[in-house]
């Protein structure tokens, strides 16, 4: 492992501490170097690079200032290490430089890692995770177990130090650090390096932790057995693993995932570790068909049993005492009387004899039927309503959107969500069209034809009708059909190009208010609302603001009107789903405020064309309309004494510091909650979370959904590091950062993330890892992917936009990420890249992914890349002609249409398999991914390469290797 020193006499690299093992230097020279990117001269290339006309140097140049923060190439401004000894990666065996190691092998194989220092990792086959995790199981698993495995390319543990990035400043002291504080990283002067030098100091990309490997290992190790939730503090399998959950008292990880399942007992420890304590909660998560949805408990008029003091709901952790006459609250320790009708004797272990008959005493997740006390105005709610609000301005008509939508709605209305078992949906529907005035429709069943009511008073919006606006679909079918037939006709010749926005939502909200129900507005909108009305916007897209202190204004809403409106919507239980079809800047940052705060979704179809985008839009629309939603919801997270929920991330509104108010909540929406200590925790009793969600079901039933989760507490930091979940951590950090850009310059946000990551890892190194040379980078097993994933977050469009990324795109992505769950953030930040022809054609399983790097692409193969939003099919230039023929029905590579979005339906195994795979990928994601076929060396490839996140990005994002080096440097600075 000691890589570096020997190898790298190279002066520069020293800063990083890890020298590359010479042997690894073999890796392709092209790799990290931006030179490759430079080769795209096309329009898409960043303007900067064009301006320079000097491919290959753009990165450093343009980012000279920014680079400092974005550590692409780690550069040494920092203390130079005299020796290039590579750090030891804990858990990573690194059989000497040349030996390729199995997974996390810790330092040189021979040396077993001292227990405790290293990370348990899912290594090779052996001990299944959970067993490892048994509390009290002290001895560390040594990564070296894995050595049994084949010569997998893994993260070679101690990373060869820096060299690679060509960016190394050649001269030892190319630039004096600008600042003296350790964070300062002088900007790299890439171009100063002689090319050959670049290649010399490379880290073998195979030698650094591979996400693919980790995912595969977890799949193999944990995908087979059900995950039983009975035991406190178990780390669940990764989100990428298919597993079955058995609820035995804790909420399924599908509902709650934590950054750590073993949390420090004291706040000091927590501060030291810097590991955020957060839970990612998806209260209404959709379960796979073989897992039962939560039982509904009906306690009659008395309602659910709660602790008198903290109001926590009855749960399996409540302790019954005094023969069952009382119970002690597990959250606040208050002793409560058991009401007579709830009384039950205890058995010899102190458990109620009916514990297994009652979901609330035996399960982690269950529902209570709420009594009238839990309802607004002390009245049981009426069934919710859906209102479709359609932009009929010139743009919407011209693109064919209105016609398409109206046609679709006719059939889609039969699939409104309904309570399971119900004959028909209780949801009522209403229709509004608008341009700069609003048109309401009376579709009462008794009418012979629909009635249109125009409201032009947009300054002071109101709902012009009550009866007949919201109707039952079946009763009014004829009128609705007639309406949907006529809408495209009526506006076919419109010349109105201006639209309003705020009044539209206001109208929908007022309609729900008048009907005294909660509901959802589906808004189909095309343009920046510039008509004279409240919430009028102006085009303020200014790319010059990027990378300045004012950049944050691009993410902030233009006016306060939107927040005010959102607040009113939340009070009414009115959730907004926004479908945008912009041709140009529409100010997503402002328009998405209301959907965001009301728990709704935003869909964006830039330059919508029916031919190209129909499939995607309709599929999203169908899913969005059909998905089960809870309305008018309030979520509260209660915790046992010692920790407290302090911060919340997601699509919702909070009027106080504890209650998360959601006008609507569907199965895709996630709330990330951060906890802080406010007292000491007790190792024995652990820490408990109870998430209670009060909502109105789509049939109008008021319910409480309760999720309970018990966590372990530790006094040893090592326990913390051993029970972490990197995917969840990234989810939290991404949301934290994405919220940060609203208030701080992007650079500061990135710096914060890097610092925090460095602190986490440094703390581990200092407190848990076995003493080793400072030049070694040692990562905790559970967090060995933290750097690669964090790098993906750092170079994402929001935090480091490329030239082609629009302000709207950034705002769009920013708000999407805010309510993503762990699985979504995982694939979003680190896309899946699936080779299509490697595995035998008969195999029915998904092919094993490869790492998202250009180096991994073979030009004789075809790959699918997906990140939950985008789907690419990359075709290598020298792919077999047979393959081309069977997939595209053309005879040669050159005949493949670049940018194709549909594969021809061909009757051959390969075509079927690929199309099947695409369908199954789409089915896994909450949004339809439009396929783009990209040919190697084509100009579209640029787009594709943006998602090869291990590579250096055009916008200046560091490659994985570079970033790892930089991270190492940061850690070393912290340690020294």
């Amino acid at each position, binding site marked *: 492992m000691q890589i570096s020193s020997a190898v790298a006499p190279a002066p520069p690299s020293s800063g990083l501490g890890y020298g590359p093992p010479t042997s690894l230097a073999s890796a392709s020279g092209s790799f990290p170097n931006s030179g490759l990117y430079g080769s795209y001269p096309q329009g898409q290339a960043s303007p900067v690079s064009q301006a320079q006309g000097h491919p290959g140097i753009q990165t450093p140049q343009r980012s000279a200032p920014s680079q400092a923060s974005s550590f692409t190439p780690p550069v040494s401004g920092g203390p130079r290490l005299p020796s290039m000894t590579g750090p030891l990666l804990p858990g990573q065996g690194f059989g000497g430089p040349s030996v390729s190691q199995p997974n996390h092998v810790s330092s040189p194989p021979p040396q077993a890692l001292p227990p405790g220092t290293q990370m348990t990792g899912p290594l090779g086959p052996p001990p299944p995770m959970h067993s490892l995790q048994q509390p009290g199981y002290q001895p560390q698993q040594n990564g070296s177990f894995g050595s049994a495995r084949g010569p997998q390319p893994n993260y070679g543990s101690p990373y060869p130090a820096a060299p690679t990035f060509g960016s190394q400043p050649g001269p030892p002291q190319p630039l004096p650090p600008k600042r003296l504080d350790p964070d300062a990283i002088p900007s790299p002067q890439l171009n100063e390096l002689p090319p050959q030098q670049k290649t010399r100091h490379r880290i073998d990309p195979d030698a650094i932790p591979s996400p693919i490997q980790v995912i595969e290992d977890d799949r193999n190790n944990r995908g087979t057995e059900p995950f039983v939730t009975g035991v406190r503090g178990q780390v669940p399998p990764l989100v990428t693993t298919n597993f079955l959950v058995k609820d035995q008292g804790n909420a399924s990880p599908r509902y709650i995932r934590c950054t750590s399942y073993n949390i420090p007992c004291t706040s000091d420890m927590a501060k030291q570790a810097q590991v955020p304590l957060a839970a990612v909660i998806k209260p209404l998560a959709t379960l796979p068909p073989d897992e039962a949805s939560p039982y509904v408990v009906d306690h009659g008029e008395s309602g659910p049993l709660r602790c008198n003091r903290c109001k926590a709901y009855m749960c399996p952790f409540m302790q019954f005492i005094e023969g069952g006459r009382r119970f002690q609250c597990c959250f606040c320790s208050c002793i409560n009387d058991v009401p007579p009708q709830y009384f039950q004797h205890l058995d010899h272990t102190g458990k109620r004899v009916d514990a297994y008959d009652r979901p609330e005493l035996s399960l982690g997740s269950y529902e209570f039927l709420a009594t009238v006390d839990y309802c607004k105005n002390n009245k049981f709610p009426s069934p919710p309503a859906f209102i479709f609000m359609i932009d009929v301005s010139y743009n919407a008509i011209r693109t064919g959107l209105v016609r398409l939508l109206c046609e679709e709605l006719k059939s889609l209305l039969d699939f409104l969500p309904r309570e399971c078992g119900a004959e028909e949906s209780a949801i009522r529907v209403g229709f509004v069209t608008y341009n700069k005035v609003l048109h309401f429709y009376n579709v009462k069943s008794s009418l012979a034809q629909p009635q249109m009511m125009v*409201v032009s008073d947009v300054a002071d919006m109101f709902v012009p009708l009550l009866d007949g606006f919201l109707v039952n679909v079946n009763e009014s079918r004829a009128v609705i059909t007639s309406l949907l037939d006529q809408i495209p006709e009526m506006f076919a010749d419109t010349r109105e190009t201006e639209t309003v926005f705020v009044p539209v939502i206001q109208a929908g909200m007022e309609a729900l208010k008048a009907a005294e129900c909660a509901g959802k507005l589906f808004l189909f909108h095309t343009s920046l609302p510039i008509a004279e009305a409240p919430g009028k916007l102006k085009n303020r897209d200014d790319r010059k603001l990027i990378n300045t202190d004012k950049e944050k204004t691009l993410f902030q809403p233009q006016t306060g009107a939107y927040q005010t409106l959102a607040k009113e919507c939340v009070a009414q239980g009115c959730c907004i789903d926004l479908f945008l079809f912009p041709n140009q800047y529409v100010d997503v940052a402002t328009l998405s405020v209301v959907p965001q705060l009301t728990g709704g979704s935003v869909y964006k179809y830039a330059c919508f064309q029916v031919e190209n985008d129909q499939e995607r839009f309709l599929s999203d629309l169908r899913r969005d309309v059909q998905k089960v939603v809870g309305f008018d919801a309030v979520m509260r997270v209660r915790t046992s004494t010692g920790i407290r929920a302090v911060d919340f991330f997601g699509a919702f509104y909070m009027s106080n510091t504890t209650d998360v108010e959601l006008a609507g909540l569907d199965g895709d929406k996630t709330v990330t909650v951060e906890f802080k200590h406010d007292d000491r925790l007790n190792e024995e009793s652990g820490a408990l979370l109870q998430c209670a969600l009060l909502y109105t079901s789509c049939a109008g039933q008021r319910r409480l959904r309760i999720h309970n989760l018990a966590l372990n507490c530790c006094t040893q930091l090592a326990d913390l590091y051993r029970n972490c979940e990197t995917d969840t951590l990234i989810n939290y950090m991404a949301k934290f950062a994405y919220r940060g850009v609203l208030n701080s310059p992007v650079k500061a946000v990135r710096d914060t993330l890097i610092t925090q990551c460095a602190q986490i890892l440094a703390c581990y190194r200092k407190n848990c890892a076995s003493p080793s040379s400072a030049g070694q980078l040692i990562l905790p097993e559970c967090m060995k992917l933290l750097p690669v994933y964090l790098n993906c977050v750092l170079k994402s469009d929001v935090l480091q936009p490329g030239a082609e990324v629009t302000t709207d795109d950034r705002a769009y992505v920013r708000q999407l990420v805010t309510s993503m769950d762990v699985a979504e953030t995982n694939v979003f930040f680190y896309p899946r890249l699936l080779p299509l022809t490697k595995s035998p054609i008969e195999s029915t399983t998904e092919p094993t992914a490869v790492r998202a790097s250009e180096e991994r692409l073979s030009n004789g193969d075809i790959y699918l890349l997906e990140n939950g939003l985008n789907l690419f099919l990359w075709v290598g230039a020298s792919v077999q002609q047979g393959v081309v023929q069977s997939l595209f029905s053309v005879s040669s590579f050159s005949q493949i249409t670049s940018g194709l979005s549909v594969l021809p339906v061909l009757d051959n195994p390969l075509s079927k398999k690929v199309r099947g795979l695409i369908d199954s990928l789409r089915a896994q994601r909450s949004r339809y991914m439009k396929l783009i076929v990209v040919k190697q060396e084509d100009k579209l490839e640029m787009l594709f390469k943006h998602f090869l996140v291990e590579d250096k990005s055009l916008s200046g994002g560091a490659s994985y290797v570079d970033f790892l080096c930089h991270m190492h440097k940061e850690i070393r600075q912290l340690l020294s």
Partner: protein
Amino acid sequence: MATYLEFIQQNEERDGVRFSWNVWPSSRLEATRMVVPLACLFTPLKERPDLPPVQYEPVLCSRPTCKAVLNPLCQVDYRAKLWACNFCFQRNQFPPAYGGISEVNQPAELMPQFSTIEYMIQRGAQSPLIFLYVVDTCLEEDDLQALKESLQMSLSLLPPDALVGLITFGRMVQVHELSCEGISKSYVFRGTKDLTAKQIQDMLGLTKPAMPMQQARPAQPQEHPFVSSRFLQPVHKIDMNLTDLLGELQRDPWPVTQGKRPLRSTGVALSIAVGLLEGTFPNTGARIMLFTGGPPTQGPGMVVGDELKIPIRSWHDIEKDNARFMKKATKHYEMLANRTAANGHCIDIYACALDQTGLLEMKCCANLTGGYMVMGDSFNTSLFKQTFQRIFTKDFNGDFRMAFGATLDVKTSRELKIAGAIGPCVSLNVKGPCVSENELGVGGTSQWKICGLDLTSTLGIYFEVVNQHNAPIPQGGRGAIQFVTHYQHSSTQRRIRVTTIARNWADAQTQLRHIEAAFDQEAAAVLMARLGVFRAESEEGPDVLRWLDRQLIRLCQKFGQYNKEDPASFRLSDSFSLYPQFMFHLRRSPFLQVFNNSPDESSYYRHHFARQDLTQSLIMIQPILYSYSFHGPPEPVLLDSSSILADKILLMDTFFQIVIYLGETIAQWRKAGYQDMPEYENFKHLLQAPLDDAQEILQARFPMPRYINTEHGGSQARFLLSKVNPSQTHNNLYAWGQC
């Protein structure tokens, strides 16, 4: 020479004019001593079946300040082809078309029998009539149903090319677009927000030449030059549509909780109607017809809050200054009325409800624009249905009995000046040499605008004699007055009707008898009543009564013959004999007495009083009482309690009510069923006679009166008892020994 009575009648029939004095006192001083001012009741469109309009335009005096129309009173020099204006004495050349004029070849306007003549003007675009229905939907189901039927029925009565529009209101106001197929469109407005005309037109999309939506449809040729508005469409084009639309009209769907009134945005609805017409058809004959079933309860023009526990203002509240919405609402409606009048449109109000509907506040809309005001208990009564239907009745020519956008121009000879007018008109503020400084009624002008008028609409026009005492008018001198009425006939033609009248001057000192004999006490009573009612609108009731009393006393002083200290010696000549009686009943009438009437009722009664012709007005002042008995044909009897006899059937017509009252015995006979016995057929006939007569009145009258059929002791008998002179009451009944 015929009697004055005949003269008066003849004049009325020919010219539609009744003067208080038919011989005029020749000096200012004497005129004022006559007590009753020199004034006339003028019915501009007096129905004249025998008067075919002439197809040319009138010849005007060339003096710019005069412009009087050539008339039979003018001196004509047939040889020189000159005529002298009889008002300003300007000598005018006849226009070339009159080249062939001679003593034997006279144009109609020079013939004495054509003192009233009507000209048809061919110039100018003819614009169709416009009817804009403004319909309250906060009605009971059956009320609304009845109203809908009436409205649907009315479509068939409208002229086929008339433009029709529909605005409905309740909590919101909806302006319905009528030209759409497949889907019915309407523009909706909040009922609480006062919008300016500009805003309304913007929101209705009227400010642009046409909605882009429509513009783009190439298939629609512009059939009619006037169809610039989607909201007003020719009846023949959209009557099916509109019938369906009306059929589907629902009650205002907004829930009305217990103890609340429905929210009714009458003020905004009217404002939008006015704004709509203002923007699309200014200065074209148009009727805004407001149908309302209750008081405006929100927005501008609200009359009462929606809390039922707070009742609508009464006279008592108004006196105590407790009517908190009244002033503001009145101001709102006045503003609307003035705007409407300025545009030449008129507003009808059809208010049907058991409680008040805010007519007090809204009255100016009808009063200033010449619109109708109809008050009933429900739309589901024949009173409303027939009244409404009667609006669309046609005259013998098949023309509607309505006219629009009239201006009445009055010209007088030099000895007279115009003091003012009282009636459904607004001043056009045209000052001129013949305008007096003293105002009676709406004064300070010689021209008035009457936006809506029918064949009986009558104005009281008041004059002042300005001739000084020391400048006597030569014997045989005549004063002349010319009324020039420009109006839009219901056939959409512009027409001008010119009435020129002349009366003799007399020196009151020497010829008082002449003047006395030429007194028209009926006209005088009505004219004085109009003055009184006009005053009552702004003054305290008792003051008006005192004023009336004083006038009566002064009149009696002037014209009565009596010996001092001997009341029994008092005599009035025939031409004055009825006048005190009229005054007596006027004092008791609902026009001056507000007791037992709601403010709405008072406004309603006054509205009609100010526009009806003399005959009807007299009935209003002093109801007519007929007595039916076996002893002969029905005879008019005194409006006195002594006329109520057991064996008589009484028929009283108060204009607003027709009461049939069976005397005690008759009622008993009827109860006993004698009328069904063949041998008492005469009794059956007796019972039937007043019914038939009542029917006749009911058929002719507008608005249709309330029809009351009652008998001795019946609760409805109060309508009769409240009107008769209480010469016999429970106090003096026995003393008179007549029971």
